[in-house]
């Protein structure tokens, strides 16, 4: 009795289950297949495309669906990678292949040399079959090891496309139970072979790379901080949301605290705080949102405010006291006096404003910390 029969049966069963949903024509093609022009792999591609448009969401591994609270962040990061990476990122390419007339013995040597357990078989550069180490053992058992591979190879090939996401690839491994998939590109050319091991290695490499990037980023941040500290520089980045009147004033509060701790004269720190406050409320009232970067060093406070628009139509008008485009809500809250920009200009030792209708507004103001002059 040969071992080949139960093994072959098992495989056939798996394939039938898969074809049941899709392609009837396939069986006919396979029955007649003798290295014909049309690759069965092309037809086999079809079942993947039934139903949803491109990527039907296969059941993800359970661990990714129900992460414990503590692991949540890490899992979602791995999950992100699995979705982001494509089969082409993980596959072995170019693949080790053999041709239909090669002997089983030569393929066995090929497998040994490359430490692989399956080889796609080509005829005229078209994928016609795949042979696994199991097939070779079966042939060996039946004393056919020196014969050509063709009668022994599996012709029912499930392939993946190189653009599939790895999460889909993982699902296909789970669904079919195969050890490897040949990978085809958009032109149905065999471009690689992918195994579960390839996916694991690819993920490990990616994680390693991200970790290295994170370490480099942190090192750069530490270096910047060290330089800032040396120059007694503090940089405060504040994101300002449109319409967020509740948060107004927090930044200027912070600036006053820093300056007060540094012994800056009250009227100077007040000027810096007013600039920050007016710049902040301008973004809240007039813009779609923006960011204020405040840099404080031993010499001056520099406040840069940049928003995402809609821009100021006429800067000269906006700089005039009493001219305002503030809406009713802002006015109800005591804003819209038309004094914001003039106030900033009056408080600043240096002042620049640029704006473009349809673009954003950028404002830069500086206050010198140790000027004898008092202005407010």
């Amino acid at each position: 009795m040969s071992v080949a029969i139960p093994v072959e049966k098992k495989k056939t069963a798996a394939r039938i289950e898969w074809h049941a949903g899709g392609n009837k024509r396939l069986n006919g093609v396979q029955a007649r297949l003798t290295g014909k022009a049309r690759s069965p792999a092309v037809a086999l591609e079809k079942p993947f495309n039934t139903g949803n448009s491109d990527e039907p969401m296969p059941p993800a591994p359970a661990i990714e669906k129900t992460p414990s609270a503590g692991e949540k962040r890490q899992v979602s990061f791995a999950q992100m990678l699995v979705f982001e990476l494509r089969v082409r990122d993980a596959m072995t390419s170019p693949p080790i292949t053999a041709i239909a007339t090669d002997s089983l013995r030569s393929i066995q040597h090929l497998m040994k040399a490359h430490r692989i357990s399956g080889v796609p078989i080509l005829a005229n550069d078209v994928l016609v079959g795949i042979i696994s180490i199991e097939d070779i053992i079966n042939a060996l058992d039946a004393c056919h090891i020196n014969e050509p591979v063709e009668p022994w190879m599996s012709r029912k090939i499930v392939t993946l496309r190189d653009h599939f996401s790895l999460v889909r690839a993982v699902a296909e491994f789970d669904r079919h139970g195969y050890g490897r998939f040949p990978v085809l590109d958009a032109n149905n050319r065999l471009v690689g072979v992918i195994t579960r091991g390839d996916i694991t290695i690819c993920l490990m490499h990616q994680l390693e790379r991200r970790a290295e990037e994170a370490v480099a980023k942190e090192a750069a941040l530490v270096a910047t901080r060290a330089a800032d500290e040396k120059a007694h520089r503090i940089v405060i980045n504040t994101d300002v949301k449109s319409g967020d009147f509740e948060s107004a004033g927090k930044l200027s509060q912070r600036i006053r605290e820093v300056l007060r701790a540094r012994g800056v004269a009250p009227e100077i720190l007040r000027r810096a705080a007013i600039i920050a406050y007016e710049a902040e409320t301008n973004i809240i009232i007039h813009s779609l949102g923006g960011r204020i970067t405040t840099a404080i060093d031993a010499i001056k406070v520099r406040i840069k405010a940049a928003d995402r628009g809609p821009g100021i139509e006429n800067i000269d008008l906006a700089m005039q006291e009493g001219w305002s485009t503030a809406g009713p809500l802002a006015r109800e809250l005591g804003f819209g006096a038309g004094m914001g920009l003039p106030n900033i200009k009056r408080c600043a030792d240096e002042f620049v404003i640029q704006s473009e209708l349809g673009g954003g507004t950028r404002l830069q103001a500086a206050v010198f910390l140790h000027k004898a002059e008092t202005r407010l």
Partner: protein
Amino acid sequence: MKLKSVSKLPALLTVVEARPLTDLDEVELSGCYISDLLSDVLANAQPGVLWVTIHTHRNVVSVASMKDISAVLFTCGRKPEAAIIAEAAEKGIMLLSTPLTTYETAGKLWKAGLR
């Protein structure tokens, strides 16, 4: 300031029939500023004044704090929310509320000598 007595906060309470919303300290006021426009206060109010306004929004506390204004008097019986009163107390800004209008308040304060 002609009459020193009214420039101290607790004494002002009776002049304008005000109710304190925070604890009051014995504070010398440098004068008074009346405005409902925040930018105007930022531009023109002197530190240490009593600020009279109808606005009760949180921004009043921010502006007062920025200008080192020690006391804010809300007119027409207005009162800010409890959270804003707490914020003012934390920043050392005293809040008061009077049922009088801003005009009446201004007249009485001026008459009492807060100038």
